[in-house]
């Protein structure tokens, strides 16, 4: 059982041009910083990226937008990125906007081997165009398909050599579902530990889903909106 690789560059070495990549994170919270940096270094092109957001101009997936490595973006919200807007309006970037719950669940279903399911989100809106509509118990639903990826990349707080992962606070977000939806799943972790160090009752992603794992470095963990309360409140 050899899943540990040296670093992000080794982990993503075989990602080809035109690959479909899913990346964990919500905004900049819990994104696979090391993998994104390595993808930028490698210069792999024409990527289809699936992630809830597209980073900001100079961090997260914004880095791969700056270098024009992304051909198509599938996301639920991309409002924090001016370069994204420019590429979208100029036609350089293809975008598929998906309701957040539908996106999360389509990814989850891929990891569960369920090819299609029904959700009410988007019924009666432009999102329903071209989709099968069906009533269950007098409520209308859209049929949505599972969403897979060639490579799934996530960042966890702790992980062991067998690929078991534990997340911290709201970094779990899309990452646990994404980790299960990749043909090849790569996990970068803040703390790489030995099998047995993680409590088997507390593992968020079992190692069976994870193909490569490495100890990440230099986490910036940039904060998008630093909000504080006054001492009085």
């Amino acid at each position, binding site marked *: 059982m050899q899943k540990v690789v040296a670093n992000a560059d080794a982990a993503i070495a075989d990602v080809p041009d035109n690959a479909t990549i899913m990346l964990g994170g919500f905004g900049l919270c819990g994104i696979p910083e090391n993998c994104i940096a390595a993808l930028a270094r490698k210069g792999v092109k024409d990527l289809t990226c699936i992630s809830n957001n597209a980073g900001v101009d100079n961090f997260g997936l914004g880095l791969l937008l700056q270098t024009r490595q992304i051909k198509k973006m599938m996301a639920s919200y991309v409002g924090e990125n001016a370069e994204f807007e420019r590429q979208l309006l100029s036609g350089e970037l293809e975008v598929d906007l998906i*309701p*957040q*719950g539908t996106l999360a*669940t389509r990814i989850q279903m891929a990891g569960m081997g369920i090819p299609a399911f029904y959700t009410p*989100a988007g019924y009666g809106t432009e999102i329903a165009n071209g989709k099968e509509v069906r009533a269950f118990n007098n409520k209308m639903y859209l049929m949505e398909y599972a969403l897979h990826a060639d490579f799934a990349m996530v960042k966890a707080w702790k992980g062991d050599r067998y690929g078991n992962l534990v997340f911290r606070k*709201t970094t779990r977000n899309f990452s646990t579902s994404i980790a299960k939806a990749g043909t090849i799943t790569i996990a970068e972790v803040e703390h790489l530990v030995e099998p047995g160090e993680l409590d088997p009752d507390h593992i968020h992603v079992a190692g069976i889903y994870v193909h490569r794992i490495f100890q990440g470095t230099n986490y910036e963990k940039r904060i998008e909106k630093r909000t504080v309360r006054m001492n009085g409140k």
Partner: protein
Amino acid sequence: MGLDKYGIAKRIAQELQDGMYVNLGIGIPTLVANYIPEGMTIMLQSENGILGMGPYPVESAIDPDLINAGKETVTVIPGGAFFDSAESFGMIRAGKVDLTVLGAMEVSENGDIANWKIPGKMVKGMGGAMDLVASAKNIIVAMMHTNPKGESKLLPACTLPLTGVKCVKRIVSDLAVLDVLPEGGFKLIERAPGITVEEIRNKTLGKLMIEGEIPEMSIN
């Protein structure tokens, strides 16, 4: 003058009941958290994976691993729980969230809502709004009664791309509280302090139903 955004938030807070699970959208809805009545336990859900979201952190407690759906740094209360996005929208879709409060650009008299896209302008994406409005048991819209040009946002039919259909139950605006009737139409429930029925009528383009004396809101 009608209510300011704090007044709208205060009025919405009167809808809360002890033990409710509530999802508050970005903007005015977020302010509702500041007016939870004393002694009430309200569990705030943030769709990126929190139940029991607490207030913003003090400076020393800021944690980049703990943000809300608006990407702001937050805290979690004792008894809170973290989970993933799929689970979060699962509980939303299953109707486990008792109340959803969100903003809108337009609401129609049959309860349709438009709040995610203005064609021709930048499209930022719908985020979780479509999932929330398609599934929430009870949806209250918090918004100004008119847009910056003074045009009514309560319409016979939405002109902007829809977020969801026949889902809004109640609107709390700067001028009034209105219910969307199952058969269609805005039923006037309360007036904002100092606002006349006449002004509300003038600023409501969709069908407005007024029955008997309309009480004034009591906002403290």
